[in-house]
């Protein structure tokens, strides 16, 4: 089921009403939410609910067993194997096969060809497997006691606002919400509505329209000018931001209306002054997950510079690969790893670069944005050839900006809005407003959606991960 559908609107209103009606009966309420979550996920493909159930049951059982077993590490390894095994089979098997076949072709040994597997990628598998893994690892680490309530844990894995595309809400965070006071203050209701309205506006008004600019640049790059290509890359940078942060805002808003507080997932990433800061503002729940469950266990920055750079690179390469089974995602991750290493090794030591004056700040913001945009080329390209074609267009002499003035203005305004938003936190201000700002902002978002949403909207980008 897509968030941007009438079906979801009706579904959510029913769930909201039932959630309120059942608030005096927590078990019934949770059962309703779980049933609704399975219904939500099953609308895409009922068979893959079996994977969700299996992952849930395995990790629930493992976590219960962890405090009692003399070799808890083996059980955690089992949990990792099961969860990452699902990812390996459904997400990476055909990519590995294609890579193998490519290598075999180079060696002119067609007899070694392997036939690809006919498998559909389960929606959200990258997200719920990471959520589930976080539970067993946290229990293993003693951060969280095992939950002796399958209903609670099942809901933590399958809760519909986040199962398909995050945020990656760790089990301990979700379970703490279930255990806490789920009453929603009036201010929370307003904030949730602001998030939902602006989330839909970001997706339908900005992301889907920017896709019309970006898609031709990446899908049919032949013959495009430098300016057209550059604007297409900028357009994608904002498309993916509006698409993914819009989805997250809707998810957080819906969860909040149901009494569950999700962590923030975006904090105006294009206002970042370094790639390190970018990753504290972009897909924050993923970067925290990678930091806590991959980077730090690898040693983090505690084993000298060389090891730190290696850990950064490993984390970001795997983070790139998490997004998709394609060498382009590996390169995207590798670029960010290289950026982070370079920042640590070089930029962190330059006084002029780190000066507090407005010029240096603007320079850092601009450079960080462009480094992110460069990496986005690989993220968005269908394959390496596609990325090369886009880069070749950017290597042309700058020319051919006729008729693009409006687009330049729009993208400039969006970039400026990131800088302003990072300082003003306008969503919170709108929600807190007692005056007409709340009504005007939400009405403007709704009218903007009526007028500017394309006739056919695309699924959210992160559904494919």
């Amino acid at each position, binding site marked *: 089921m897509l968030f941007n559908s*009438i079906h979801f609107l009706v579904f959510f209103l029913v769930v909201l009403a039932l959630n309120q009606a059942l608030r005096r009966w927590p078990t019934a309420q949770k059962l309703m939410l779980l049933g609704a979550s399975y219904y939500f996920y099953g609308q895409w493909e009922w068979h893959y609910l079996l994977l969700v159930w299996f992952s849930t049951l395995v990790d629930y059982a493992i976590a219960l067993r962890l405090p009692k077993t003399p070799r808890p590490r083996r059980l955690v390894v089992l949990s990792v194997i099961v969860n990452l095994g699902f990812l390996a089979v459904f997400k990476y098997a055909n990519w590995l096969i294609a890579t193998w076949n490519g290598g075999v072709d180079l060696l002119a040994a067609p007899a070694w060809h392997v036939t690809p597997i006919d498998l559909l990628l389960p929606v959200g598998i990258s997200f719920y497997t990471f959520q589930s893994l976080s539970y067993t690892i946290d229990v293993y680490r003693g951060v969280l006691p095992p939950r002796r309530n399958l209903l609670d844990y099942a809901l933590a894995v399958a809760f519909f606002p986040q199962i398909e595309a995050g945020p990656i809400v760790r089990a301990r965070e979700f379970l703490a919400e279930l255990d806490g006071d789920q009453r929603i203050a*009036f201010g929370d*209701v*307003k904030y949730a*509505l602001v998030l939902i*309205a602006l989330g839909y506006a970001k997706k339908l008004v900005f992301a889907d329209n920017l896709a019309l600019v970006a898609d031709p640049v990446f899908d049919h790059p032949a013959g495009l000018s430098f300016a057209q290509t550059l604007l297409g890359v900028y357009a994608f940078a904002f498309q993916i931001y509006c698409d993914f942060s819009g989805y997250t805002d809707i998810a957080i808003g819906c969860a909040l209306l149901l009494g569950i507080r999700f962590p923030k997932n975006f904090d105006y990433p294009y206002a970042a002054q370094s790639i390190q800061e970018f990753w504290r503002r972009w897909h924050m729940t993923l970067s925290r997950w990678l930091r806590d469950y991959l980077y730090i266990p690898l040693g983090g920055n505690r084993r000298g510079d060389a090891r730190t750079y290696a850990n950064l690179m490993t984390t970001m390469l795997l983070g790139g690969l998490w997004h998709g089974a394609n060498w382009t995602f590996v390169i995207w991750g590798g670029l960010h790893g290289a950026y982070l290493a370079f920042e640590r090794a070089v930029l962190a030591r330059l006084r002029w670069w780190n000066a507090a004056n407005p010029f240096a700040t603007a320079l850092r913001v601009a450079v960080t944005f462009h480094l992110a945009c460069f990496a986005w080329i690989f993220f968005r390209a269908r394959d390496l050839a596609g990325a090369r074609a886009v880069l070749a267009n950017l290597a042309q002499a700058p020319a051919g900006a006729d008729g693009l003035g*409006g687009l330049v203005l729009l993208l400039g305004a969006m970039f400026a809005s990131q800088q302003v938003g990072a300082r003003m936190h306008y969503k919170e201000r709108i929600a807190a407003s007692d005056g*007409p700002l*709340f*009504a*005007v*902002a*939400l*009405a403007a978002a*709704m*009218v903007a959606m*009526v*007028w*500017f*949403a394309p*006739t056919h909207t695309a699924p959210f980008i992160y559904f494919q991960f």
Partner: protein
Amino acid sequence: MLRKLLVLAAPLALVLVIEALFAAGAWEPFAEPQSHAGTSLDLEHALRDPAIGRIDYVTIGSSRPEYGIDHALLATHAERLGRTHADLTMPGTHWTSAGVLARWLEREHPEVRGGIIALSVQDLAFAYNGYYELGILQPFRRVDDLGWIAARIPFAMHDVASYGVVSALFAWRDDVRAFVAAPTQRKEHIEWRNSHRDPRHLLFGNPESHGDMCRWGVDGLAACDRLEAATDDDSAGLRRQCRELRTRAADAPDFAAGRAAAELPAFMSNTRDRVRAQLEGMHWPTPPVVILMPMPRIWNDVLGRGQHEWALQILQPLADAGRIRLLDATAFFDADADRGCGSFFDFYHQNAQGRERFTRWLLPQLQGLLYQDATGTPASPAPTLDRPRP
């Protein structure tokens, strides 16, 4: 609690206020003059002009009669009779937009005595022609037209284009988007339109048309073969029409088979019932004169089998009952020595020569069918007219 509910409801209330403002015409001054809605707005503006005064007869129809009838000639003739005859034809007008316009006239110009409903055989294939009609009727619709419109233009949840049936914000969607994409161009178009507005010319004059089709012929789709072999820019528009004609020919239903079937196909019975109900529902003192406009011979290759006969089958009973006056001019130019090519400037529309010839033939017919109350002569008996000879 009430205050909280009001705060939560305020955004929706504000959207409803904006919707009401749009339904009341708040966007109309900014609409693109060259759009369907812009054309309708110009017409509405002209009809409301105090200098125009009373209107006795009207011509309603699409671009075929817009170009195919000499409205200046009709206006002059009506003026001699002490009457006014206004041209309300607009490109794209079809049954629903024509109906909303007629309803608007009942409210705003109740003095209208009668008029011409000018269409073509093609317009009787289906009672519904596409969501674009919402643009044409938007300036003329009022709140109480909603049910009438919704019964004729289907609302489809999955199709945003249909939301304009129920919402003015959606009805103006394409226009607002075009405005945002090119605001300077819109401003120029509006300024030009405002400085060149001429209600009298709009209601009592003729559009310009140039050229004829004798270079290519209008005999059949072979004309399109010749066009498609050409590469000059001047005939690019004709080549576009050829693509439309070929698509229509390929998709044309078999009306003869439908008529012969034990049960009429639903789309044919729906069209028949809707068209008849609409014509019977017109409350002019004089029954409307329904004219099937001339079509060049190429349409013999394009229309569905039995489509002309089906059109007559829909309309003839109304003519027999005296509810309409029917003039079938479909083949008006067919017997010409040049086979009609000199009377059209494209595959749809007559040029000035064709327009004048046709109107000179039409005027005596109208004298008996429409203007008879201006001369005091009794109305003609309900005609069953053969196809006219020019």
